[in-house]
Every structure is written in C-alpha cells, then in structure tokens.
C-alpha cells in the first residue's frame, strides 16, 4: 500500500459534497497547495470545517467550491482585512455560514474522534447562536436536571494537514504550534498529509516522542515544499505578504484562476523531485 502520492492524486480522493477540515490557523500552516489543487480540480459543494480560517476558506468560496462553512472566525489578520469572497458567498445566500464559537468546532470534532453523536459544551449558554443554529441544542442533564448545551458532532470525510516532516509511512511531526491538527487527524475518516519534506524513517525514529500523527492514521502523503505558502510555516518561511496582498485585491474568478495557474509549478514541485533523502 503505497501512501506517497502526487498532489493531483491525493486531492482527487476528495468527493464533491465532502466535509473537509484543514489544519493550521488563519495564515499559519494552512495546507494551501492542497487548497489550490481543490480549486483547480473544481470540487463542488464542499462543507468546510475549521476553527479559524483565512485564505483557505476564502479562496474556495471565491471559486464556488463551497456549500457551507462551519467556523468560529473567518478573516485575514489585522493587516489584510476581511475574507470578502466568503462574506459575499454568505451574503448572497450561495454559501451557508454556520457560525460556531471556535471551541464548539473543537467539541464537534472531539465528538467525531470519540464517535459519539454530540459533545456537551459548558460555555455556550446565552445569545442567538444557540437559537439560530440547529447544530446546538439545550437539554436537561439527566444526572442533575440542570440545562446543558450539546453541539452536534462533525465528522470530516477528509482532513488535510500540512507538516514540516513526515516519513513514507505517514509518521508526521509538526514543529511549532499544532493548532487543532492533531484533533482533526483523529476526527476525520481519511487523513491527507502534505509535507515540506519526506524524510527517511530512520530520521523520524530519532524523534519518536515528537511524532504528532502516527503513520497508521494517515491515508495519503504528498511532498509539497512550500505547501503552506502564502501562509507561514514555522521554521521554514513567513507569510508571503506579496501573494496575500495580491489575492486580497482580486475580485473575479478569472484573476484567481491565473493566480492558481501561477502556483502550479511550485505546487507540483514535490512530485518531480521525488523523495529527498
């Protein structure tokens, strides 16, 4: 069972209508090469799940790949402003914006990792989110009789996580903040890892205790150097200011298609390189 695949092959595993969860947080270690490939392959009706997304969600909304977004926060950071494609999609009614508190996304994914239909949540006990969304319900705790909020479990069909290092079995190490990546690797039915570098098993073995995702949980591995760009990747590169700033200004799908096209050489570099040992 060969797990190492090309970016095209791996993204091809995603079906229209799938629930997809991305690793990273806002402009940090998001699996942007895979996101771009999803857009190139013109996937449809995806249900995106993430605590806090930025260009990953915005780009797929722009290219009409998205049916719904379950998130606590969708926006670029201070410097870059709002996620306008996402906003317009929701405002026009094309995209369903399912607002969560970031923590309720986490709880919904914990529900998936434990394979239970809901997760109780302490904090969410006031306000309109509770009223307007059918994925929250307040019930009576059968032990105490007190009210408690439940959030409905979300099971991602696919999780895509970008890491710095991974061996051919899928044993993956994330350097720096892990965000919710470990959780989504346990919540999803299928885990796709994109990695800066495929390293020899012998090298990963030196850091056994630091493995964040054991290989047997991983379905597919893609080598994509700079696979998080223009988001940052700790110890590898910073946010690509020029690319994000340029994207922010784009309003037409044609402009964005050119933007995606311009990334092709970079995004497909890993498979041409083969394994770098």
């Amino acid at each position, binding site marked *: 069972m060969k797990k190492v695949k090309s970016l095209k092959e791996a993204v091809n595993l995603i079906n229209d209508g799938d629930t997809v969860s991305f690793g990273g947080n806002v402009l940090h270690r998001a699996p942007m090469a895979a996101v771009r490939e999803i857009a190139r392959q013109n996937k449809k009706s995806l249900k995106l799940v993430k605590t806090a997304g930025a260009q990953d969600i915005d780009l797929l909304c722009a290219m009409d790949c998205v049916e719904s977004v379950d998130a606590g926060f969708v926006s670029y950071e*201070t410097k870059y402003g709002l996620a306008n494609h996402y906003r317009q999609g929701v405002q026009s009614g094309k995209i369903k914006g399912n607002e969560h508190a*970031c*923590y309720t996304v*986490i709880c919904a994914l914990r529900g998936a990792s434990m394979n239970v239909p809901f997760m109780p949540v302490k904090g*969410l006990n006031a306000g309109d989110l509770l009223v307007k969304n059918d994925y929250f319900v307040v019930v009576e705790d059968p032990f105490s009789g007190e009210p408690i909020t439940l959030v409905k479990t979300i099971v991602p069909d696919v999780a895509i996580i970008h890491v710095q290092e991974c061996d051919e079995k899928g044993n993956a190490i994330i350097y720096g903040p892990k965000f919710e990546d470990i*959780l989504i690797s346990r919540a999803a039915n299928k885990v796709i890892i994109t990695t800066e570098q495929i390293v020899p098993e012998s090298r990963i073995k030196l850091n056994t205790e630091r493995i964040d995702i054991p290989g047997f949980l991983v379905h597919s591995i893609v080598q994509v150097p700079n696979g998080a760009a223009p988001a940052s990747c700790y110890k590898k590169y910073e946010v690509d200011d020029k690319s994000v700033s340029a994207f922010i200004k784009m309003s037409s799908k044609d402009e964005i298609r050119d933007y995606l096209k311009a990334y092709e050489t970079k995004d497909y570099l890993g498979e041409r390189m083969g394994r770098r040992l």
Partner: protein
Amino acid sequence: MMTEGYRVSDIMTCCISNMLQDNETVFHGVSSHLPMVAMKLAKSMHAPDLVHLNIPGGVNPSSIKQASYSSAGADLLGTAEAYFPLEEVFDLSMRGKLDVAFLGGIQFDVNGNVNASVIGDYHKPKVRLPGGAGSAVLIPTAKKAIIWRVKHDKRTFVETVDFTTTRGNLWRIVTPLCIFEYRKGKLHLESIHPTSSLEEVKNNTGFELIYDEIKYTDSPTNLELATLKKIDPYDYRSIEF
C-alpha cells in the same frame, strides 16, 4: 493624537495593563496586539507571575518583539516556557480557571449584548462579519472578560445589536475614548481618557450614557511609557489604529 507625550494607543495599553493582577491566567486571541503588549507591560511592572496564554500555545513567551504581523503565529511559542494549545485554553476557561480573556466584537449595546456575527438576518445577512471566534464561550466562562476596540462610534456602540453573538458577564470595554464597566446588566461609563471628553464620548455612543460621577482614566506614567518603548519597540500596540 498626542497629549503630553503619549498617544491613545498608549493610554489604552496602560489602562488595560493596570486591570491585570499578578498570578492571573490571561488569554488573547488573533489580531490582538494591543492586549498582548498590555499583558507584557503588566508582567514587567506589577504582575511578574501573570500567565500569558495565546492561540499558538506559548505560555509566557519571553519576548513579543517578533510577533509582528500576527498574534497567532509561532513567534509566541518560540520563546515560551511551555506549550498549552488553544483547545486547552478553552477547557481551562470552561473549568473557571481562566482569569482574564481579551475579546473583540463589532457592536455592543447598553445591555452588554455583543455582536461579532452579522448585520441583518443571520441566515441571509446584509453583512457577514468574521465571527465571534471564542467569544461565545469565553465571555460566559472567563472570570473577567475584557473587550477592547480601537473604534468608538455610533455604529459600534448601538441602542440594540443586530445579533447577539453572546451576552452578559462582560467586565470592561476599553475604547479610544473611555472605559465601560458592565455592572448589574448595564454598561456604565467608568472613566473617560484624559485625551477625550464627556462630550466626545456622548457624541460617539449610540445609547444613553450611564454614570454616577465623571472620572478620568489615569494617564500613563513615565515608567510605563519607558517600559512600553522597551518591550514593544516596533509599536505593535498601534497596529490597529
């Protein structure tokens, strides 16, 4: 705006710093440079054992100088004392052990309702906002929820919010003009920054101000201003202005 050697971003940072006490666990989210600097100021001044928590998970980063474009990047982890990720910060707050949370919001009304979600109908909004991030679970559970905003106008402080992302259990709202305190279900004008005036606050607030007496926020001390220069040489505290 500059008065007597300090700016609005300085007084906001300093008054927030003074709200923080030693040994408290304090969390800030993304795009939260001003509170991040305020926390570092408090640690340098009067609260050395304050516990600084953040999204990348760096407990007590020894420096915030590199957290340039973001406050969710890895920079806060690189120099940290331990790793304590966002998931766990939420759990901590649920357990009643998060002392202070810094949160945002787009609209606030006199009854302490917070909107970070939408303008217009939730399901087909006129404006889809970024979302409340952790607010809807942190405001009800953190011991003290501090909202900071760099905008103080009638679109922000409104008679009634369009949508209630969360409500209640606010502690303070800090704006460029003043500090509100949430008490007995209402926002009270606690103090006006010396850089502003009662009139300016009134003219820029969409609800009737509630106050017993007019007080003014303490001006930053020279020591605070000097310390700010040292810990925040790139002036991240002013990034949102």
